[in-house]
């Protein structure tokens, strides 16, 4: 088992240019963006704005944390995210009246997790291609969510929970605390536990992992179940803080999450990656969004800039790794 994991680790610890790049690229990228921001806009380096940056992608960032496990374990990507976000949000608000906010939120989480479990069974146990499986389940679940509410907006009732979700602790919004909390659980889960090692092994070499008695199916399935749960959590939080929800609530979140994970440097092929890197990726995407507005760029340019950064980061990374491989 350790042998399986060793290559990925050793790369990070060695001192080849590639390893240096992959260790330092995220801090450097963040630094560069921060410098650009502070030079270009006087309002950038203010407590308020930096809180905005942290807060901007904290909800969708939760999904990116789960997506890290999907990619690390060789599950490519989960495209059913918007459906699970919608399910989490709509079920919570829909059930609020009959069962109270707390239970309704749990219900929302449960339903979204079920969606994730179905993905897990299809992909982990039936070994269906993740892109197709999650395309299918996403289509079904989003259709169901629209069927549930028709065209309507579901409104929330005032509740202690939603007041809490919108509040700040020690000057930092609860959304950010939740993101930090989840990241603090998931980072060691991937980096230090057997489950984390299984994930890396399954993504690194499926057959070898299977041969060394790693529960390959469970590991892969669990990554999708986790992502379903986190998408649901994202939906529940958004519904409670926004006070209303519609089926379109999570549109595009799958791409934001994938982009954040990829910018963080986790490989789509599986086998290496870290939650901490994804946190970096989430920060970078949030900084891009923030700078576009502060610098007065048109918001249509977001895709252009994000895409270019993805190509740049991944291309350079691939170049160094290839070079390291040849040496």
């Amino acid at each position: 088992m350790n042998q399986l994991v060793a290559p990925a680790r050793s790369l990070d610890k060695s001192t080849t240019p590639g390893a240096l790049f992959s260790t330092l690229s995220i801090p450097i990228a963040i630094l560069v963006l921060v410098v650009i921001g502070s030079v270009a806009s006087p309002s950038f380096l203010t407590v308020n704005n930096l809180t905005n940056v942290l807060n901007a992608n904290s909800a969708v960032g939760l999904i990116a944390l789960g997506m890290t496990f999907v990619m690390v374990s060789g599950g490519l990507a989960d495209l059913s995210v918007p459906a699970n976000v919608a399910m989490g949000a709509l079920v919570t608000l829909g059930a609020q009246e009959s069962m109270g906010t707390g239970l309704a939120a749990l219900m929302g989480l449960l339903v979204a997790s079920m969606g994730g479990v179905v993905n897990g069974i299809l992909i982990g146990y039936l070994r269906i291609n993740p892109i197709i499986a999650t395309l299918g389940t996403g289509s079904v679940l989003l259709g169901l969510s629209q069927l549930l509410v028709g065209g309507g907006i579901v409104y929330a009732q005032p509740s202690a929970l939603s007041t809490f979700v919108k509040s700040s602790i020690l000057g930092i919004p609860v959304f950010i605390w939740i993101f930090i909390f989840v990241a603090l659980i998931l980072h060691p889960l991937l980096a230090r536990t057997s489950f984390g090692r299984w994930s890396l092994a399954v993504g690194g070499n499926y057959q070898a992992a299977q041969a060394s008695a790693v529960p390959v199916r469970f590991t892969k399935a669990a990554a999708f179940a986790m992502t379903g749960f986190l998408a649901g959590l994202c939906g529940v939080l958004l519904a409670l803080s926004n006070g209303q929800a519609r089926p379109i609530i999570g549109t595009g979140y799958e791409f934001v999450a994938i982009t954040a994970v990829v910018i963080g440097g986790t490989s789509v092929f599986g086998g290496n990656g870290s939650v901490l890197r994804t946190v970096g990726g989430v920060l970078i995407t949030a900084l891009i969004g923030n700078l576009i507005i502060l610098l007065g760029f048109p918001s249509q340019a977001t895709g252009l800039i994000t895409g270019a950064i993805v190509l740049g980061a991944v291309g350079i990374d691939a170049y160094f790794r290839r070079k390291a491989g040849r040496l």
Partner: protein
Amino acid sequence: MKNFDFALLGARAVQYRLVIMLVAVAVFGGLSLDDFLTVNTLQSVLDRATVVGFLALGLTPVLIAGQIDLSIGSMMSMAGITTIFMQPVIGNVPAAAAGVAVGILIGAVNALMVVVFKINSLVATLATLLIFASLALLLTNSYPLSSEDPIFGLPLTADFLWILTPRSAIFLIAAVLMFVWLKLTPTGRNLYAVGSDASAATSSGINANGYIAASFVLSGFFAGLAGMMQSLSTAAGSPVAGAVMLIPAITAVVIGGTRLEGGRGSSLATLGGVLALGALTTALEYNGVPSYTQAIYTGLLLILLISLDRIVSGHGGASSRAQRSVRVAPRNTPLPRRNA
């Protein structure tokens, strides 16, 4: 024994899925609607299938080569706005060619990213999807362009040869030509070899990278064709024309039986998938089934077909095959490291 029969039944169902689906849709449509089984309906289904059809057709060689192209919708939008924008500048036919050329060019960018810079195709084309969708909006300031010569493209969707329209005729011919190329020529067969196992193909002397690059350029060509035809036949170039096209195109290809794992698939299967999906959509629409309910049906169908396929074809290893074929490792890499 019973088990065996069941398996056989399943295998046959998978094998003849397109025929079964088309017949089922015809029966369902015929029973539920008076005016479904008519020449007009057939013509309309074929014509509507054209745009998604071109995209799906372009996607087929990419998937056979074990890659994926998420940027087809953005290429289509770019081609459409180019065509309409260039019409008054360089004339109708050159403008149409320019539209297709833009598709080819973006396809070449994808090829460059995947083959030369070794970026995983899922990531590379996700990036170009974002970049060119964004560029299309920036270039047009988010407004759809109106054609200066709206009459020019009209004949594309006019009646032509009984059940066809000119554009659906071109689509059918393209599907057949691609079938001939894939199945009957050495280069076509090499593509399957590349998709099944790129490094094995490379060591047997096939230029795997060349084939992969070509498949992306081809995908760009077809997306360009789709955008050009769509924009001419609606006399408008919309920057978001292709935004909703990716999922139907992938669905059609997969329903047809081409696998994302690479090494398997056919353009006629894609044609069948496109038609089955188109006929189903039309039958459901004629019955007034809301779009979200249609999405539920389509999603279930996709899961059912792919599960059946997986169960019937039995033995596993598909996921690792996917990775192996997606990764075009440089030869003799000592420790195959999966970079993205």
